[in-house]
Each structure stands twice: as C-alpha cells, then as structure tokens.
C-alpha cells in the first residue's frame, strides 16, 4: 500500500482524512462525513451549482474545465435519465493520487457523486475504477454497501424524499478509457473507442442521457466546498484556480510522494523544498509537470506557479498533477521512446493519425536510440508529431505528439549526439548500431 508523506506547506482539504481510518463509515461520520450531503439536500440545485462555480474548482483529471460550468450544461428537463459518472480510471503516467483518495477516504467520493447528482437531477451515479485497482474496488464496494445499509444511499435519503443509487464499476486495463467518451463506451460494455463531440456528454451521455463526468479528486473536493463555501475554497488557490491539488512527485527525488498543495504553489519550491530536491549525485534535467502527455520544462522554466493558467503560459500544462522530475542521467531519447511506446500501446487505432503516428514515432525512435539515426530523422519526428495534433477524436493523439515535439525543441542537441552510428551517450554498455 502506498504510504503517506507530509510537509508543513501542505493545505489538507481532500487529504484531510488520509490516515485517519475514514474508510470506516462511523469514523467518516465522526469526521464531518455526509454533512455536506445533508446540507446539499436543503439547497436548490442551482444554489449547489453556483457554490461550485464560485469555488473555481477545475477538473482534476487534467483538462482543468470548470466543474460548476460543466454541471450547468446539463439540461433541467430530460426525457432520458441523467447520470453522474466518476472517473477513477487513473492511468496517466506519473499520476497516483486518486488511489490515495479511494484508499483513505472512499466515502468522500461517494458523497461528491451524490451531491453532483442532486445538483443536476440525476438518480444514479457510477464510480468507475481501473481494473488494476482491485483492492480499491473492494474498498469502494464496501463503502457503498455500508452507506446503503445505513440508509445514506438508496430510497428517501435523510428523509428528503430523494432517491439516489450509486454503483461501483471495474475497468480491465485501458488508458484511453480515462477519456470521458471512451469511459462511457466502456461502462456500456463496449470497446473504449471515443465518441465524436458534439454532442457533449452533458447533453448526450450514458445510454443517451445527460451525463456529468468528473475526476475522482474533483468529486472528492465537492463536499468540502459545500460544507465550507465556494469562496473559502476559491481563496485557497489563485484567481480562476480554486482550492488545492494533490501533486504526485516522482523521479529521483529525496522525498517523492503525493502532497496536497494550494493551486499556484511554485514548482521549483515543490521540487527543492517539498520533495527535498534531487537525490545526491544527480542534477535536474527537466520537469514534466502534469503527467506524461504534457510538454517538458527545462530547469530555467520551472520558476512557475502551478495553476492551469500559469503553466499554460510557459508552454506546458498542469494536466493530471503528476510531476515527473528528470535527472541528468536520463537520456532524453530513451525517455521519449518510453513515452511513445506507451501511447502506441494504448492507441485504440480508431483514428489513423494516432494509430499510424504513434507507431511510426515509436519505430523511428527505436532505431534512432539504438544508433541507427540519420540527421533528417529529427525533423521528421517533429513533422510527424505535429501532423497528429488536433486530428483525432480524442486527446490521445495530442497527448502522444505534444511531449515528443517539446523534447526535440528543447533537447535537440541530445538527439544530435545520437547520430552517425554513435551509441547512446547515457548507456552503460554500448548497444550495437542497427545497419
């Protein structure tokens, strides 16, 4: 099981019950559990949506779309049933935060789903977890069963006359299912091939009904917003970036771990202060600030506030909160190859630019890294990746292309060092060049 870390700069909102045994329903109730749900039941749906809008909560899955606004897109009247779908298919390389929420505070996710359902007029919520997270599925299933047994979920919750159902659903290994339309396909028992938008899920979602899809961390933030107010949550972060965020620090750091820090916390401080800096003998080479699909930042670019807008301004994205720190002993070509190998493996093959693009990038980088690169490969790689951008149904194509382009732009010299049959300068034992 994943162990917990802490740092004095942390502001614990989503993680405030971590390590306190809140997976137990009684303990959760002691720690203000389901109070926000009771409060929400006494509010009008518009008031709930408004509170979330005021909080400036933005999607914690990666895209950073304002959660309250997403909820407001759901039509009030609908002939088809409405749904709330919690995205717990956490699979973005570098990201390991939702795992902690499911493990330590499963009821907060359930409570968030239920509040979202009340806000949009849904009667059913689904919590979708990736199949690899079996022990967490068991924790979630128990939490749901306990809440049903206590009358917290089900018919006439807290005597309000409102009926709500919540179910837990398991995936079976697919990164792409983390994309919202693919997630719905998967829940409907199909291949996780994305749907074209519009229509957006808020209008046409699960089984054709209006559907709100939010990341687990977003939903786990909701009870705190309802209980303490949207303004309070907004005040924790920066303008238009409310609250806190679970940042997953990984790489050769002294104190890697998941830290909850206010939105807008300085990245450099996050690395050198919170995570204790690089391990002895290694130096910083670059930082991937939001999961493997975002652009890399060089050491002179990391003096940046970690919120959606500021990171975008320096040419990358806040993404999923997965801060991957590269040290100077990692070859950028090898890193690029590992990244593209992942996206090639996960591409569903539906859109040709993604299917072919990821495959050719992988083939070229494989040859290149083993010493078979020619000078024109470098521009070809970039050209190939650039031609994938914006040409696919779902963001997987962009997610594969964007980081590769940034590695070439920012570490071009290192690519050139691999040319003319030279072995990778970082390898301990030289690999023979491919003819």
């Amino acid at each position, binding site marked *: *099981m*994943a*162990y917990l870390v802490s740092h004095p700069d942390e502001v614990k909102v989503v993680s405030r019950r971590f390590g306190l045994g809140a997976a137990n329903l009684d303990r959760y109730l002691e720690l203000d559990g389901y109070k926000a749900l009771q409060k929400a039941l006494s509010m009008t749906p518009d008031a709930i949506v408004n509170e979330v809008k005021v909080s400036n909560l933005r999607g914690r899955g990666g895209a950073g779309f304002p959660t309250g606004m997403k909820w407001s897109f759901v039509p009030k009247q609908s002939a088809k*049933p409405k749904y709330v779908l919690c995205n717990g298919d*956490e*699979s*973005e*390389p*570098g*990201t*390991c935060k*939702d*795992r902690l929420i499911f493990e330590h505070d499963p009821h907060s996710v359930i409570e968030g789903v239920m509040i979202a359902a009340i806000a949009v007029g849904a009667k059913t919520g*689904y919590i979708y977890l*990736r*199949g*690899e*997270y*079996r*022990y967490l599925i068991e924790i979630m299933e128990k939490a749901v069963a306990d809440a049903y047994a206590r009358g917290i979920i089900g018919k006439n919750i807290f005597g309000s006359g409102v009926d709500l*159902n919540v*179910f837990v*659903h*398991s*995936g*079976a*290994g*697919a*990164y792409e299912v983390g994309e919202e339309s693919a997630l719905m396909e*998967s*829940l*409907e*028992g*199909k*291949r*996780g091939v994305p749907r074209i938008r519009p229509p957006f899920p808020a209008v046409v979602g699960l*089984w054709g009904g209006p559907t709100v899809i939010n990341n687990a961390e977003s939903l786990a933030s909701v009870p705190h917003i309802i209980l303490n107010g949207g303004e309070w949550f907004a005040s924790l972060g920066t303008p238009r970036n409310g609250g806190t965020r679970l940042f*997953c*620090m*990984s*790489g*050769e750091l002294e104190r*890697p*771990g*998941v830290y909850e820090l206010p939105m807008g916390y300085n990245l450099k401080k996050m690395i050198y202060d919170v995570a204790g800096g690089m391990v002895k003998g290694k130096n910083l080479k670059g930082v*991937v600030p939001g999961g*493997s699909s975002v652009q890399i930042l060089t050491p002179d670019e990391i003096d940046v506030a970690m919120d959606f807008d500021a990171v975008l301004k320096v040419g990358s994205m806040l993404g999923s909160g*997965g801060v*991957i*720190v*590269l*040290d100077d002993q*990692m070859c950028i070509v090898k*890193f690029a190859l*590992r*990244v593209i190998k*992942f996206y090639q*493996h*996960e591409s*569903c093959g539906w859109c040709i630019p993604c299917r072919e693009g990821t495959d050719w990038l992988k083939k070229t980088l494989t040859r290149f890294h083993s010493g078979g690169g020619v000078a024109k490969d470098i521009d070809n790689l970039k050209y190939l990746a650039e031609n994938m951008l914006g040409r696919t149904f779902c963001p997987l194509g962009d997610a594969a292309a964007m980081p590769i382009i940034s590695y070439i732009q920012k570490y071009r010299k290192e690519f050139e060092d691999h040319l003319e049959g030279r072995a990778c300068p970082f390898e301990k034992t030289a690999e023979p060049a491919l003819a």
Partner: protein
Amino acid sequence: MKFSDQLEQRFTTMVTHYPTKRSVLVPMLLYIQDEIGAVTDEAIHEMAQRTELTELEVRNVISYYSMMRTHKIGKYNFQVCTNVSCLLRGADDLFEHCKKKLGVGHKQSTPDGLFHLEEVECIGACSWAPAMMLNYDFHENLTAQKIDALIDAVKKKEQQ
C-alpha cells in the same frame, strides 16, 4: 459453463445496476478470468448468451482490454512497470533481473506454470517507484532483493 455461486451472485446483482445487460460485460469477464484463469471459449459463450450478444461481439470487447486474456498463464503474474516514473528509478534493470531470475521473457510463463512475467504500463505507483504488481498486489520501492524475496515466498508457499 456453470458459474460458481460467487459469480452467479455477482452477475445477478450487477445486472440490476444498468439499463442494458451488456454493461456487466467488462467487469464480469475480469471476475470470471480471476476465478478460472482465462476468458475461455466456454466463458465467452456463456457471457454472450447472458448479455444477448454474439460471441464475436464479446471477443471484440475482450481484445480491447489489456488485462483480459483468452489463454491461461502462470499462477503468479509478475507485472513490472517500466513506464517513465519507474524508468527514472531503475525499472529497466529490475525487469531484466526478473527475466534472468525467472528464465522467461515478456508475456511468458515458466514451464511449471508457476510464474508469468509481463512488462506493464503505468500502474499508478509513480511516487513509490519502481513498482510492480504480483497478481493484484502492489509492491513498491522495489529492489532486486525484494523481487528475489517475492519469488522465494511463492516457491515456499507452493512447496507446502
């Protein structure tokens, strides 16, 4: 194929959670696999009937998900993550170590049917890298010694 009581109960409950029967497909196939080792022809036939789909439609779903398999593998599945966060902390060497120690390559099982080895994509253990899963259990902050201990523990358990 006759479901075990556990599977039957899971199916009966789960099918009430969704407006369409086929929604149970992905989780049910995985639970069947966990129980009998693979999504066999019989399992596909059974699930196709229960969800009112063709066998081809069920196979089409199976081929999309990386955890599902139609053939049995070694009883103890060593799934070593080599994605970026683990790569930065030496996952490549650990995967090589597993290969040598178990004498098998990627997606291969040992002849005695005890071990299976797989290089897998990110398992969500990035801050505790390098990491692997042994069946459904996470093993984090991995070292070659920890892997050896896991292999020894399996062997010991199976000898009893």
